[in-house]
């Protein structure tokens, strides 16, 4: 079995985010990056399949040189090989552009399963996974919280409203976009990190994937016009005093607003 895992490198959760000069994205210099948390669970799920002795796991990511570190970490955790789409032409791709790149990789590799995170920690669009499945014309599910594999089929519990779970069965090849928390993600052990040095690491350009002119800023249908921090308003009221005073103030506020 061949499993493709799509990883995105995102700003570290503790990184201080400042907006760049033209107001279209964050300032990326001098901040720390990490693997998108959702994607780490996707990778762990793939590696568990591999641990059961049945899979060749390869990881794919799109982005500049720094993204190589995320892929190397994934190799350190146990993935067998990495594909890094590193090309300025991919810059500014919208979700569809990213899905096209991943689809082109998938068409070259023909994986049985594709695991990825439900969405990314940075722009939360949750769009790439369904788009990728659509481009490949394969079944998919999102928000998977439990994944079970048996001959040719995958059964997933997916999270739906109200805390309920929906059970879906998919036939491979298929794509599963996972929710966080469905497993305990492993570390890259020191042995794994050293072994990663010797694992195949392919760098591909947009042209290598036959997508020249089809992705990147020029092809994007969705463009970020402006990003901004939430406006600071004066609608919040901070209650002060002892705990008893704060609680009393809160209760009277709730009554005043007719919320109870």
């Amino acid at each position, binding site marked *: 079995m061949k499993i493709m895992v799509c990883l995105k490198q995102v700003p570290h959760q503790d990184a201080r985010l400042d907006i760049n000069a033209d107001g279209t994205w964050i300032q990326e210099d001098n901040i720390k990056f*990490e693997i998108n948390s959702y994607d780490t669970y996707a990778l762990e799920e793939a590696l568990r399949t591999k641990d059961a002795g049945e899979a060749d796991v390869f990881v794919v990511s799109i982005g500049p040189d720094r993204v*190589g*570190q995320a892929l*190397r*970490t994934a190799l*350190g955790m146990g993935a067998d090989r990495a594909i890094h789409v590193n090309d300025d032409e991919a810059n500014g791709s919208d979700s569809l552009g990213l899905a096209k790149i991943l689809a082109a990789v998938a068409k070259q590799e023909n994986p049985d399963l594709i695991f990825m995170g439900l969405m990314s920690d940075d722009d939360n669009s949750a769009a790439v996974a369904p788009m990728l499945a659509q481009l490949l014309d394969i079944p998919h599910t999102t928000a998977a919280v439990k994944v079970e594999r048996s001959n040719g089929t995958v059964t997933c519990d997916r999270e739906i409203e109200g805390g309920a779970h929906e059970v879906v069965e998919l036939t491979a090849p298929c794509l599963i976009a996972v929710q966080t928390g469905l497993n305990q993600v492993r*570390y*890259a*052990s*020191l*042995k794994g*990190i*050293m072994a*990663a*040095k010797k694992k195949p690491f392919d760098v591909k350009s947009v042209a290598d994937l036959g997508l020249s002119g089809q992705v990147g800023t020029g092809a994007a249908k969705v463009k970020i016009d402006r990003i901004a921090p939430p406006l600071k308003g004066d609608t919040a009221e901070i209650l002060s005093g002892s705990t008893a005073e704060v609680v009393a103030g809160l209760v009277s506020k709730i009554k005043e607003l007719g919320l109870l």
Partner: protein
Amino acid sequence: MSTEDWRRIDLYAPTPEHRAFRDTLDEFVEREVEPQAAEHDRNETFNHDLFRRAADLGLLGVTLPEEFGGADLDATAAVILYEALSSSDPGFALAVLAHSILFAQNVNVNGNDEIRQHVLPRAISGEWIGGLCMTEPEVGTDVLALRTQAKRDGNDYLIDGRKTFITNGGIDEHTLGDVFVVYAATGEREISAFVVEKGMGGLSLGQHWKDKLGMRASFTAELVFDGVRVPATNRMGAEGEGTLAMMRNLEIERLTLAAMSVGIARRCVSVMLDYAGQRKTFGVPIREHGQVQRYIAESFAEYRAAASLVFDVARRFDLSQTGQRIEADAAKLFACQVAKRAADAAIQVLGGYGYMGEYVVQRLWRDAKLLEIGGGTLEAHQKNLVKDLSRDPARVRA
């Protein structure tokens, strides 16, 4: 190397492997080290399960050969490890360091192939816990005066004496550590190094040192050698070459102890910065007050200076060579005092809370003090530095 490449070097994690290792350590520390640290300090217990987890992740063999299960990485990787562990639990970090550096690295540089083959795979896998036996009840820095004797008896030596302040001397009250490098006199002011294993008759666990000021998550004990019969094949190096063996490993010992100090200082700066932004007096966060700013800013500057020194020394370090004692002594001499001052400043910034056991800085303050004593006292470093620099004044210049 181009000008641009030179500027892009990250002294603190120069290669992708160093960076990945540091990320793994950050996660391990947050998920598994930090949650247990306060409890093991309070109970004065060594966390054997965590030690085994560290072995699983490869943390016990960072500098040791791949053929025995190690990662064969450099001094920078070792510094990254001990800095990270010590930012959370210096006591546990010390236990790992005593095992991996004082013991296993020592065997690696001083033992012959047979000894290394016998010892290192078990040490790296965590099957054995090792320690170093140098200090005696009446002999510390003046190692040539040590009184533990090793007398030749046919193909064996018989070792008699007492060793004390042995980190990993025991695993708990009733369990002796597994294996030790032991320095013993084989003549007048002449010492030799031996590998002594649990199970060799006459070796026993003596007093468990309780109520230490800090490093309480490491197990410190006295070991009693009562005619311990050790095969001559367990001697490392020629008879009388113990001083040389000791010198060969001292530099990496000191550098990694300095790294522990850097970890303590970093944590203290983070804790006081965080607290000073939240705690208010006179209507403003206390970080607005100049006196508090001084504690934080001075500690940060000193921490960064210590980190720069320690990682720069690590960058130049060749684990297979000696000759870096000046740098290793300087790194430890400076960093251990920075750690203590940063911990002291952190307690001051946190005020009454800083003094309480529930807050980490109190523990770090207690732990930091050991680093001014263990692995060479401040005074030993000062003495060595002046002696070595006087011999080679050209090395003053950076």
